[in-house]
């Protein structure tokens, strides 16, 4: 698929801008702060309903305006779809598809798929588990948009259960100080119910994540080999909170964790039972700390390189190669699925290939990685590249060039 037109109103630095695009490579070039990332960020927003730079929509609305509108035309084979998103910070966002309103914005997920490379990606390897969980969850939504409802329910369960744990903990502490210990009893009656909900929804997410990691693993191994010099193998693992230990609430190794071992057969029922068991084991801790200590929101995607965790061991260059490999693997998975896959991913058909977005990444890489990455992505149906200077766009990525300057976009080639 590809984007054939992007139009922004009051989005970031743009009051109004029209950007026609074509399949193949388009390089957006201009000095710092001129609005290149703003353009590709908006494209990514249509695919994921989120920005890769900020978690709240407020920063996306042009200072002084009350709402922003992103309009985008996505072409897939012979079918063209017009998506319009209206961002209203503090209120509900609205969406239209082919000029008809849809019930809610998330109904547009699946129309456009993107894989976005950005300087921030280094944090996938060097940063906290949260970024890696987000990588998995965002990819899961692009693979199967319906999972977004499960993710949002899970989020809600966490917030409700967290509120309950907090008040139960406060009541218990109050009770110790003199009041009666019975104060917390009514709260605990419903905790069992929230345990059940967390286990039920959490198990679906967990199974989905574990499968996704299994599917990504061969793609990551291959992509890492291609971008690096092939020193050391990149192997994915998944660490769940199922074995959270009573001492520090931190997960200890579980049978799921063995890096490189596939778990396609793990059943939702088993995971649900294990989550329930882990919560009953951790109940005292959870109440004392007033925090949800068990569930996929505590898990981590493990990145191993040559038998050691990449975080803390890999060099700067190796970390970059790993980050690129994760994005390239996402692209491969979305484009081709996995051959041995029985989940229907391979049935995506023509035109599923996501739009590749490379925001300012070439400037971060040494010349060898630059060249390898450029060769790997050059074959994609559509590639959007941003760079401060034209020399940062590798020669393999020959195509259209658009100058971005002071809120104006000009096609120069």
């Amino acid at each position, binding site marked *: 698929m590809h984007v054939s037109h992007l139009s922004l109103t009051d989005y970031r630095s743009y009051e109004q801008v029209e950007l026609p695009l074509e399949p193949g490579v388009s390089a957006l070039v201009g000095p710092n702060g001129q609005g290149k990332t703003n353009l590709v960020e908006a494209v990514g927003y249509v695919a994921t309903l989120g920005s890769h730079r900020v978690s709240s929509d407020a920063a996306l609305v042009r200072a002084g305006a009350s709402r922003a509108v992103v309009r985008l035309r996505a072409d897939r084979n012979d079918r063209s779809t017009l998506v319009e998103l209206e961002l209203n910070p503090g209120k509900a966002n609205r969406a239209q598809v082919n000029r008809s309103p849809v*019930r809610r914005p998330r109904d547009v997920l699946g129309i456009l798929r993107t894989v976005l490379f950005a300087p921030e990606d280094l944090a996938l390897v060097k940063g906290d588990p949260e970024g890696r969980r987000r990588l998995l969850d965002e990819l899961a939504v692009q693979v199967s948009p319906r999972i977004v*409802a499960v993710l*949002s*329910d899970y989020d*809600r*369960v966490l*917030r*409700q*259960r967290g*509120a*309950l744990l907090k*008040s139960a903990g406060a009541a218990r502490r109050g009770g110790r100080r003199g009041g009666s210990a019975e104060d917390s009893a*009514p*709260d605990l*009656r*419903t905790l*069992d*119910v*929230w345990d*059940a*909900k967390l286990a039920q929804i959490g198990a679906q997410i967990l199974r989905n994540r574990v499968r996704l990691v299994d599917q990504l693993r061969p793609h990551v191994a291959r992509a890492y080999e291609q971008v690096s010099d092939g020193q050391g193998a990149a192997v994915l693992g998944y660490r769940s909170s199922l074995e959270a230990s009573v001492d520090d609430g931190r997960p200890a190794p579980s049978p799921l964790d063995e890096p490189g071992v596939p778990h396609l057969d793990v059943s939702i029922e088993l995971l649900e039972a294990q989550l329930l068991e882990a919560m009953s084991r951790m109940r005292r801790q959870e109440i004392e700390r007033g925090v949800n200590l068990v569930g996929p929101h505590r898990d981590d995607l493990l990145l191993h390189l040559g038998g050691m965790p990449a975080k803390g061991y890999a060099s700067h260059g190796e970390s970059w190669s790993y980050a690129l490999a994760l994005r390239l693997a996402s692209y491969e998975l979305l484009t081709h699925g996995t051959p041995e896959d029985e989940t229907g991913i391979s049935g995506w058909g023509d035109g599923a290939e996501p739009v590749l977005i490379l925001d300012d990444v070439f400037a971060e890489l040494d010349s060898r990685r630059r060249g390898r990455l450029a060769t790997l992505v050059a074959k994609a149906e559509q590639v959007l590249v941003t760079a401060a200077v034209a020399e940062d766009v590798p020669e393999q990525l020959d195509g259209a060039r658009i100058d971005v300057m002071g809120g104006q976009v000009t096609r120069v080639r």
Partner: protein
Amino acid sequence: MYEGAVQDLIDELGRLPGVGPKSAQRIAFHLLAADPVDVRRLVDALTEVKARVQFCTVCGNVSQEEHCRVCRDPRRSNEVICVVEEPKDVVAIERTREFRGKYHVLGGAINPIDNVGPDDLRISELMSRLADGTVTEVILATDPNVEGEATSTYLARLLVPMGLRVTRLASGLPVGGDLEYADEVTLGRAFEGRRQISA
């Protein structure tokens, strides 16, 4: 800020659900400019609703009398009770013409964030209605969202051990939504296809 009475009106309107400060201001100035007869009618309607409408002492639905119209209707079965969160859900289900039993309105759903626990809902009233053994089935028709599901699970764990047939509306309702937004056909189908809860 406006002077005295105008600002008071804007503040009061602004406390209504779904009315933001801007709309509150617009409504206030609309009322200021409106015909006194129209405003009188609105005032009367407000006074009337508070004076005459009460909650049915049996089921918790809105009612003009001590017992609501559904509870008074002798043609409706006393053997099935449909549990809902709000009076507006009764209206939504009545529209489907699918259900001929009685209702029980909880007055909300379990919601720890808003500090709503089981004791804040009309659950003990439900238990007293079940005491004499007339009721054989309880249909849990709380909203198809996280709080509604949790409330249904909580109730099912109380009711199933009592030997009642406990059912939940079939899926197919918009997930994460409100019962009242489901169209009649979908809601009717969810009723017909309700499934029994065993645990």
